[in-house]
């Protein structure tokens, strides 16, 4: 078959036909995958909720509530109930203070605001540094401790920074209403991830925002978070 000539009409026509066909087929694929993409997102959300609150028998997704934080961000609250009793809340929170882009976290709290667990849903922090927040702020199991020391010893060697020794980096069991949940460098109670202070600050910012927004909704005290110097509660964590 003869090759199509490179006349202006031919060129424009070919490009137009190709663009229309590809646009239409993409639209079709988009329609096909739209539902599965949303399902995958919902499944991820559900798994995260299950991870961070005690066992429940209601459908938190159906009872979800959209709340406004003080600075106007939209947070989602998922109440977890067992036999009609509120056993915990999962709050999907976010921050824009991260090192690169938005960080989204699912924070699980007891009804009084004490943190049960968390799960990082989405972040674009530096792999190997800021990305450690996925595990860093959980209590250290003995074996995990050895791993953590190994990781920080690399940083220690590389940056000459003292690896975090006896400090506290777990936020589980803390209550943003009672504890000062900012990094220890800024005078708070939580040790930042080695060499990733910005990511750590952002992480805590998101967690505290989750608490504040939930507390406002549930009428809990927000003394410590709003910068009060007195600590009412003692350390209720190990």
């Amino acid at each position: 078959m003869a090759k199509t000539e490179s006349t202006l009409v031919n060129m424009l026509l070919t490009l137009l036909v190709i663009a229309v066909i590809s646009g239409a087929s993409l639209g079709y694929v988009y329609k096909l995958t739209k539902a599965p993409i949303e399902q995958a997102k919902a499944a991820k959300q559900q798994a995260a909720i299950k991870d961070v609150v005690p066992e429940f028998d209601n459908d938190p997704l159906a009872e979800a509530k959209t709340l406004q934080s003080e600075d106007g961000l939209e947070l989602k609250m998922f109440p977890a109930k067992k036999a009609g009793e509120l056993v915990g809340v999962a709050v999907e929170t976010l921050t824009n203070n991260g090192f690169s882009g938005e960080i989204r976290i699912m924070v699980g709290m007891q009804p009084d605001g004490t943190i049960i667990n968390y799960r990082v849903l989405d972040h674009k922090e530096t792999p190997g540094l800021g990305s450690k927040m996925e595990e860093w702020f959980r209590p250290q199991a003995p074996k995990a401790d050895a791993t953590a020391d190994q990781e920080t010893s690399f940083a220690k060697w590389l940056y000459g920074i003292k690896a975090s020794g006896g400090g506290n980096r777990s936020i589980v069991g803390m209550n943003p209403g009672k504890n000062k949940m900012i990094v220890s460098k800024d005078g708070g109670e939580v040790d930042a991830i080695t060499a990733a202070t910005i990511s750590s600050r952002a992480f805590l910012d998101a967690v505290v925002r989750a608490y504040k927004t939930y507390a406002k909704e549930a009428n809990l005290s927000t003394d410590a978070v709003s910068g009060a110097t007195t600590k009412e509660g003692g350390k209720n964590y190990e």
Partner: protein
Amino acid sequence: MNNWKIFANGLLKENPTFTLLLGMCPTLGVTSSAGNGLGMGLATTFVLVMSNMVIALVKDFIPDKVRIPAFVVIIATFVSVVEMSMQAYLPSLFASLGLFIPLIVVNCIVLGRAEAFASKNNPFRSILDGLGMGLGFSMALTLLGSVREFLGSGKIFSLAIYPEDYGMLVFVLAPGAFLALGFLIAIINKLKAA
């Protein structure tokens, strides 16, 4: 050139990564684990095979002067298809490959094969060429990913080989990608010379 040779060409003799040094960005960017490397390789293979096939089918209708933009549109279409399907059915892989999925569009291998092979050959041979090149690329990415994962965290395909505590984290981080690929290519050069 018989069909088998077309296929095997991309696997070894003209391996896109180790010999032609094409597509370096995803090669270095996503190979922090063997699984990621394999996922990226297969996604690229799909795009290569499909775009090679379509371009070989329609090559006679496309005027020479708008050849390249037409190829780019065809390639970008398949990349978007991969992007959406992966988001729907493999969300965790999509999350870890991230930005590098849309960037398959500018992977020099894909446009390179379209221009060098598919625009001159029949669809069947073009599919074979795409498959060979794609699998060669996947193999290279999986190999590099395995080496980095093994040295960095003591695992291959998330299977623990030795305790993670003894891993060299640097191989999972950015510098390790350059170092591991540099030494791998050096070893392959050496083997070829021998």
